[in-house]
C-alpha cells in the first residue's frame, strides 16, 4: 500500500517542512476567512493528500490522493470568492489539473496492465516491454508538468495561485508543485529507466524555456502574488534543467555527474519550497494588511512591518540566487552540472548546452531585477495608498509562521552538507552512484563540483566573511560617531511624493520595452495636454497589461475551436427534433452497410461508394433543401 523509501521520506520531509510553519501562519490568517470550516477541512485534506501522494506505493492510491489533492486545492482557491476572476481561475486550474490527470491515468493504465494495485517495480517490467516508451514518457511529462506549471502548460499558475488565500498559495507554490517533481523522479527513475538521450534533452529544453518565460512574465506583473507565481514557473524550470542534465549524463554513462545533477535538482526543489513559501507568506501578510494585491498600492511597508519585510528580504536574496544563500548554492550546483557538459563526447549536444547556460544565467539576472522591484516597490519608499499608510505588523501567529519558515531557509543554507548527504542517499537507494564524498571531500567547509574543472564554493566561509566584514564596518561606523541628520529627500531639488517615485510598471519599463516583441503589451495612455504641447500635460494615465503569449495563441484558440465545434454539433443535434426517423434510417444504413463491407469482404471502391451514399442520404433525408 505505502512505500517509505528514502525518496518518499525526503519528500515527506519537504512537505512537512513546508506545511508546519504554514499551519502557524494559516491559523493566524484564519480570522480573515469567512468560511472557516470549509477552509480548515480542505486545508488539512490538502496537506494530507500531498503526503498521501508521496507515500503511495501503487497507481490506485497515487491517483486517488492526486485527485484529492487537486480537489481540495481547487476548493481552497474558492474559499474567498470576491470577484469573477477567482471563479475563472479556479475553473481553469481544475481543468488543467484534470488535463494532467488524464495523461497520468493513461500512463498508469499502460504501465500497470490494468491492474492498478501493482507495485512500482512490477510496473517497470511492463513498461520495458511496451513498444513505445516515448509515448509513456510524454504521458508522464504532460501529466506531471501540467501540475508543475512548465511552459506551455503554465498558464493557469499565475491565475490560480494568487486567487487562493495566502497560506494556500504558499502551500500550492511551495509544496504542491514539488509533488509533481516527486512524480517525475519516482516514475522516471523507478519505472521508465533506461532513457534515450532525447528525453533528457526534452526536459532540459522545457526547463530552460520555462525558466526564461517564467521570469519574464514575473517582471511584467503588478500583482504581487501573480509575480511570485510566475517565479514558481521559473524555478520549476531551473529544477528541470538540473533534472534534464541528470538524465542526459545518465544516458551518456557519466554516472557521477548524473547523480550530481539530480542532487542539484532536488536541492533546488527544497530551496524553492522554503523561499517560495516564505515569499508567499510575507506577500500574504502585506495583502492581509493592505487588502490589495496590486503592488502599485504598496510602498514603505518596511517601517510598519519589519518582520515581514525582513522575511521577504531573506527569501528574495535566496530566490535571486545571491551568495551565500541556499538558492545560490543549488543554482551553483546546477550551473556546475551544465558546465560539466564539456565532458561529453557528443559535439552537437555540447554546443547546445551553452544555450541552457545562457537561459539560466539570464534568468538569474532577471530574477534579481524582479525581486529588487518586488522588494523595493513593496517595502521601500513612500506609501502609495492609504491602506499602505495605515498598515501594521501582522499578528503573532502569522509572524511566527514566517519566522519558522525563515528558519527553514536558513537551515538549508547552514546545513547544506547534511541535506546533500541525505539527497545523496535518495539516489543511492535508486541505484545511482554516491557522490557525497566527492562533493565534500574535505569536511563541510568546501563544496566541490564533480566536474573536471573543479568549481568550488565555500558557503560557510563566505557567510562568515561577509558577516565579519560587515560587522567590522558597522562597528567602525559606530566608533566614528558620525553625525546624522534627517531631512527631506533631496532628489535634485524636486519635491518628491508618493506619486513621483518610481512605480512597479516604471521599474520594469526598460526590460518590458526590450522584450516588447514577446510581451506585446496592451498599452493605454491618455493624457490631457496643455495648449497643444506635446510634453506639457495636466493629467495623464498610463496602464499596461501583458497577456501571456501562450494564453493568447494557444489557449484562446483552443477555446474558440471548442466553441465552434459545439456550435455545429448543437445545430446538427437539433435536426433530431423533426427528422428523427430520417436519422434512425441513416444510422441503420450506415451501420448495416459498414457491417457488410468490413466484416464480410472489404473493397475500397465500395467503401467510397458507401461514403457517397451516406452523404447523399444525409443531404436528402436530414438536411433537406434550403428554404
Amino acid at each position, binding site marked *: 500500500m505505502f512505500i517509505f523509501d528514502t525518496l518518499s521520506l525526503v519528500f515527506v520531509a519537504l512537505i512537512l517542512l513546508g506545511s508546519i510553519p504554514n499551519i502557524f501562519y494559516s491559523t493566524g490568517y484564519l480570522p480573515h476567512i469567512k468560511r472557516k470550516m470549509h477552509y480548515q477541512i480542505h486545508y488539512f485534506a490538502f496537506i494530507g493528500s500531498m503526503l498521501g501522494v508521496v507515500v503511495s506505493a501503487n497507481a490506485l492510491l497515487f491517483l486517488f490522493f492526486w*485527485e484529492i489533492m487537486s480537489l481540495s486545492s*481547487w476548493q481552497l482557491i*474558492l474559499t474567498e470568492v470576491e470577484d469573477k476572476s477567482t*471563479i475563472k481561475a*479556479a475553473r481553469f486550474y481544475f481543468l488543467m489539473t484534470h488535463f494532467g490527470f488524464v495523461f497520468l491515468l493513461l500512463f498508469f*493504465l*499502460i504501465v500497470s496492465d490494468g491492474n492498478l494495485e501493482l507495485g512500482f517495480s512490477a510496473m517497470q517490467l511492463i513498461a520495458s516491454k511496451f513498444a513505445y516508451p516515448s509515448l509513456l514518457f510524454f504521458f508522464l511529462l504532460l501529466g506531471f508538468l501540467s501540475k508543475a506549471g512548465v511552459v506551455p502548460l503554465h498558464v493557469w499558475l499565475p491565475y490560480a495561485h494568487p486567487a487562493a488565500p495566502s497560506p494556500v498559495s504558499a502551500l500550492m507554490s511551495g509544496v504542491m508543485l514539488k509533488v509533481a517533481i516527486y512524480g517525475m523522479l519516482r516514475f522516471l527513475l523507478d519505472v521508465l529507466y533506461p532513457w534515450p538521450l532525447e528525453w533528457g534533452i526534452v526536459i532540459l529544453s522545457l526547463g530552460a524555456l520555462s525558466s526564461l518565460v517564467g521570469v519574464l512574465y514575473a517582471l511584467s506583473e503588478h500583482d504581487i502574488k501573480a509575480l511570485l507565481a510566475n517565479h514558481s514557473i521559473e524555478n520549476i524550470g531551473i529544477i528541470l534543467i538540473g533534472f534534464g542534465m541528470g538524465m542526459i549524463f545518465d544516458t551518456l554513462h557519466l554516472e557521477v555527474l548524473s547523480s550530481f545533477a539530480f542532487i542539484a535538482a532536488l536541492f533546488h526543489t527544497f530551496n524553492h519550497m522554503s523561499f517560495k513559501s516564505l515569499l508567499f507568506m510575507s506577500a500574504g501578510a502585506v495583502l492581509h494588511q493592505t487588502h490589495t494585491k496590486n503592488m502599485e498600492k504598496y510602498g514603505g511597508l518596511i517601517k510598519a512591518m519589519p518582520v515581514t519585510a525582513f522575511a521577504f528580504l531573506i527569501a528574495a536574496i535566496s530566490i535571486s540566487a545571491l551568495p551565500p544563500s541556499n538558492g545560490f548554492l543549488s543554482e551553483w550546483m546546477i550551473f556546475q552540472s551544465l558546465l560539466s557538459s564539456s565532458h561529453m563526447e557528443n559535439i552537437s549536444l555540447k554546443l547546445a548546452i551553452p544555450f541552457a547556460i545562457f537561459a539560466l544565467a539570464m534568468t538569474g539576472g532577471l530574477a534579481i531585477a524582479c525581486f529588487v522591484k518586488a522588494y523595493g516597490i513593496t517595502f521601500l519608499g513612500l506609501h502609495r495608498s492609504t491602506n499602505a499608510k495605515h498598515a501594521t505588523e501582522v499578528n503573532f501567529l502569522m509572524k511566527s509562521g514566517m519566522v519558522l519558515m525563515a528558519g527553514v531557509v536558513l537551515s538549508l543554507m547552514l546545513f547544506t552538507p547534511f541535506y546533500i548527504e541525505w539527497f545523496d542517499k535518495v539516489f543511492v537507494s535508486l541505484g545511482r552512484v554516491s557522490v557525497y564524498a566527492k562533493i565534500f571531500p574535505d569536511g563541510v567547509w568546501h563544496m566541490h563540483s564533480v566536474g573536471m574543472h573543479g568549481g568550488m564554493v565555500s558557503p560557510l566561509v563566505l557567510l562568515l566573511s561577509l558577516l565579519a566584514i560587515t560587522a567590522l564596518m558597522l562597528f567602525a561606523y559606530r566608533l566614528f560617531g558620525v553625525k546624522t541628520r534627517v531631512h527631506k529627500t533631496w532628489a535634485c531639488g524636486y519635491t518628491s511624493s508618493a506619486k513621483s517615485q518610481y512605480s512597479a510598471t516604471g521599474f520594469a519599463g526598460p526590460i518590458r520595452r526590450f522584450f516588447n516583441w514577446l510581451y506585446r503589451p496592451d498599452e493605454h495612455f491618455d493624457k490631457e495636454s496643455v495648449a497643444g504641447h506635446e510634453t506639457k500635460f495636466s493629467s495623464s494615465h498610463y496602464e499596461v497589461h501583458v497577456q501571456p503569449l501562450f494564453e493568447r495563441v494557444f489557449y484562446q484558440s483552443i477555446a474558440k475551436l*471548442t466553441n465552434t465545434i459545439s456550435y455545429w454539433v448543437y445545430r446538427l*443535434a437539433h435536426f433530431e427534433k423533426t427528422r428523427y426517423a430520417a436519422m434512425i434510417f441513416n444510422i441503420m444504413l450506415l451501420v448495416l452497410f459498414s457491417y457488410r463491407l468490413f466484416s*464480410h469482404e472489404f473493397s475500397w471502391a465500395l467503401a467510397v461508394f458507401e461514403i457517397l451514399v451516406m452523404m447523399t442520404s444525409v443531404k436528402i433525408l436530414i438536411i433537406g433543401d434550403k428554404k
Partner: protein
Amino acid sequence: MMLALLLAPALFMFLVSFLHNEKSKYLLAFSSFVILLPIIKLFTLVKPYAILGTYLVADKLDTYVLLVSSIVGIGVTLALLTLDKHVKVSPKANRRFYRFFAIFWIGLIFSILSNHMGIYWIGLELATLSTVYMIKTNYTPAAHKEAWNYMIVGAIAVSLILFGIILMYASAKPILGEDAMQFDLLLQHAKEIPSPFLFEMGFAIATIGMFIKMGFFPMNLWLANIERASFYPVAALFSGILESAVVVGFFRFSQIAMEVNYDHLFIFVFIYTILTIFIVSFLIFRAKDFMRLFSLSGVEHMALIVMFWVSGAPFAALLHFGAHAFLKPALFLSTGVLESNGKYKIAGALRGYKGKRGTIFWFLVSLFLLAIISLPPSPMFFSELYGFGAMISTAKESDHMLAMIGAVLFLLILLSIIFYRFVSIYQSMKYEGETESKEVYPSELFALILFALSLVALMLPDTLHYLKSVI
C-alpha cells in the same frame, strides 16, 4: 411463488390507483416502497434461481440491477410525495402516474429478470409505453409534444430491438429450435451458430435500437428534451430505471456477441460510443439548464458503461452502472428544488438554503455533482480507473495499439470537456448569481440521503466483491 411476491406490490399499486381517496396517495407510496422487500429476498437466494421455468431466471447480474432499480424507485416515490409543492399536479394525475408506474414495474421486472429474448422485449415495450403517459402528467404543450415524440421514437427503437431479436433467433434456430430465444442456451452455443453474419446483423440492429433508447449517436438530444418537458421524478425514472432495463439487455446480447466475434463487436461498439461521447460532450458544453445537462451526462455515462462492458471490464461497468443509477436520479430529483426559482437559473442555485435541512441538501447536491464527474472518492472514480484500464489492456493486445490508445486519449479529452462544464456549472451554482431562498422538504432530503447511503454501500468491500463475482 417468487414471481407472485415480486408482482404483488405492483398489482396492488395498480388497483389502489383507482381509489378516489385522500389516503390513497400514501397507500400508493407505501406500496411502492414494498417493492424492495421481495427483491431483497430474491437477492439473498442462491443464484441462479429459476422464477418461472427457463423464462425468468434470477442470476447475480439481474438481481443486482433490479435491486439498484428498486432503490431508485423508492427514492423517486419519496420525491413524488412532495412533487405538488414544487409544481402543479392534480391528485388525479398523481393517481394516474402511479397506475402507469405499476405497469412500468411489471414490465421492468419481466424484462430485467428474463432469460428469454422475447420476454425481455415484451417487458421493455411495456415499460416504454407506460412511461409515455408519465411524461404527459405534466399538462403542458411541450410535454404533450414530447410524449408523442417519445411514443414514436421509443416505438421505433423498441421495434428495431425486436427486429434484431428475430434475426438473432433466426440465426440460432437451426441448432436450438424454439429455445433459441434463451440467453443462457444461446451463450453456450454461440460458437455453433451457423450464420454468424445473420446473428451479427441482428445484434447490430438490436443494438442500434437499444442505443437509440439510451440516447446514443445520433439521437442524443431527444431524451434530454423529454426529460426537460416532463416532471423531474419521471426524468429520474428514465435515467435510473428504464435505462437499466435497456442496459441489461445490452449486457446479455453483447455477451453472446462476444462469443460470436469479439473483434467485430468491440470495434462497432467502440466507434459508436466514441461518436456518442464526442457529440454529447459538446452538447454538454452548451447545456444551459439542469435537466438537459444531467440527461446528456446520463447518455455519456451509459456510453461509458457500454464501453467498459465490451472492453472486458464487467466489474467496472457494473460499478459505474450502480453509481450512475444512484447519482443521476438523485440529481434529477434535486432539480425540483434547484429550479424552484426558474428553469434556467443555474447561477446561485446552490445558495439560499436555510437551516439544517438546507445545509444538508446543498452539501449532498454538491457532493453528487462532483461525484458525477468522477472525482474521488466517488465510486465512478474507481470504476473509470478500472474501465479505462481494461480498455488499455485490450488496446495492448490488439493490432492497432497506437490507434486505440489514441482513441482512449481522445475519449478522455472529451470527458475533460464535460468535466470542465460541470466544474463551471458547480462554481456558478455556488458562487455566482443572487441568493434567493429555496425550500427543501424532508421527503426530498430523505431521497437524497437514501441515494448517498446507497453510494456508500456500493463502495463497501462486500459489494465490490459481489460485483467482481458477477461474471
